[in-house]
């Protein structure tokens, strides 16, 4: 449990190593070379620390700027513009430049929260439990409200009791599975997304 701080020995060694007076007397300029410290000498951009880099597309608007995401040890350490893309040529707007801030926002949620009916606060519940519970609710709601034909005999095969909102910010593959499962499988018709907002 060692406490990290600048010990006396380090201070003395550091002072002697970076002492400018002797270098100044030896002729180096006190405004540049003589003043340079060892920290400045071996300074490197943090991207050299990255052990993985990938191309992602900015998650904000539809211009489709492409970005480079750098990661180290399974965590993203920086996101900035991809210079190869003809769409943004390395540049990004304020939102795109904040992608790293979004991924590492303090307000980010990483566990499932559940509110029981008439409850007054959130509870933490495991993901698997939530998935089972939602599947059961979907089946129960569908079974109770599925209509195969209207009174006048017209074929409908739908349920009006379940709805889904969402997808303009989701991947195409996600939208495809949502429409395939909800419409093609469960017979939901209330399926919409931000395209109309």
């Amino acid at each position, binding site marked *: 449990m060692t*406490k990290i*701080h600048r010990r006396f020995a380090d201070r003395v060694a550091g002072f002697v190593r970076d002492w400018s007076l002797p270098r100044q007397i030896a002729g180096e300029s006190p405004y540049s070379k003589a003043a340079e410290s060892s*920290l400045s000498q071996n300074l490197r951009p*943090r991207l050299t620390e990255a052990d993985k880099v990938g191309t992602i597309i900015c998650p904000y608007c539809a211009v489709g700027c492409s970005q480079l995401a750098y990661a180290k*040890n399974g965590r993203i*350490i920086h996101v900035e513009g991809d210079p190869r893309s003809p769409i943004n040529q390395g540049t990004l707007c304020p939102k795109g430049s904040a992608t790293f801030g979004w991924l590492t926002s303090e307000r980010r949620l990483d566990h499932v929260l559940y509110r029981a009916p008439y409850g007054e606060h959130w509870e933490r519940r495991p993901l698997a439990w939530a998935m089972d519970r939602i599947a059961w609710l979907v089946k129960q709601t569908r079974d109770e409200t599925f209509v195969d034909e209207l009174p006048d005999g017209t074929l409908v095969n739908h349920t009006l009791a379940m709805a889904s909102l969402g997808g303009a910010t989701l991947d195409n593959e996600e939208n495809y599975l949502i429409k395939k499962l909800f419409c093609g499988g469960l017979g939901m018709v209330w399926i919409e997304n931000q395209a109309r907002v």
Partner: protein
Amino acid sequence: MATVSGIVTVAQENRFQLALDEGGTRLFVVTHNAAIDPDQLAALQAQQVHVAVTFRPVDELIAGEARAITELPR
């Protein structure tokens, strides 16, 4: 004063970002009397050392004021 533990993911000058063991990420500024130099922070990031940070949240900065950092066993 609170204490959280985690891994330093990014370090710039005297500021660093900690990936918390309990999940989430938080930004810290090292106070001057913590007497920690930038190269020590950079070393923590390079070796992904498991550390505990004693800090005080500062709402204005949406970050924490790191008073002390102690190295924890792996």
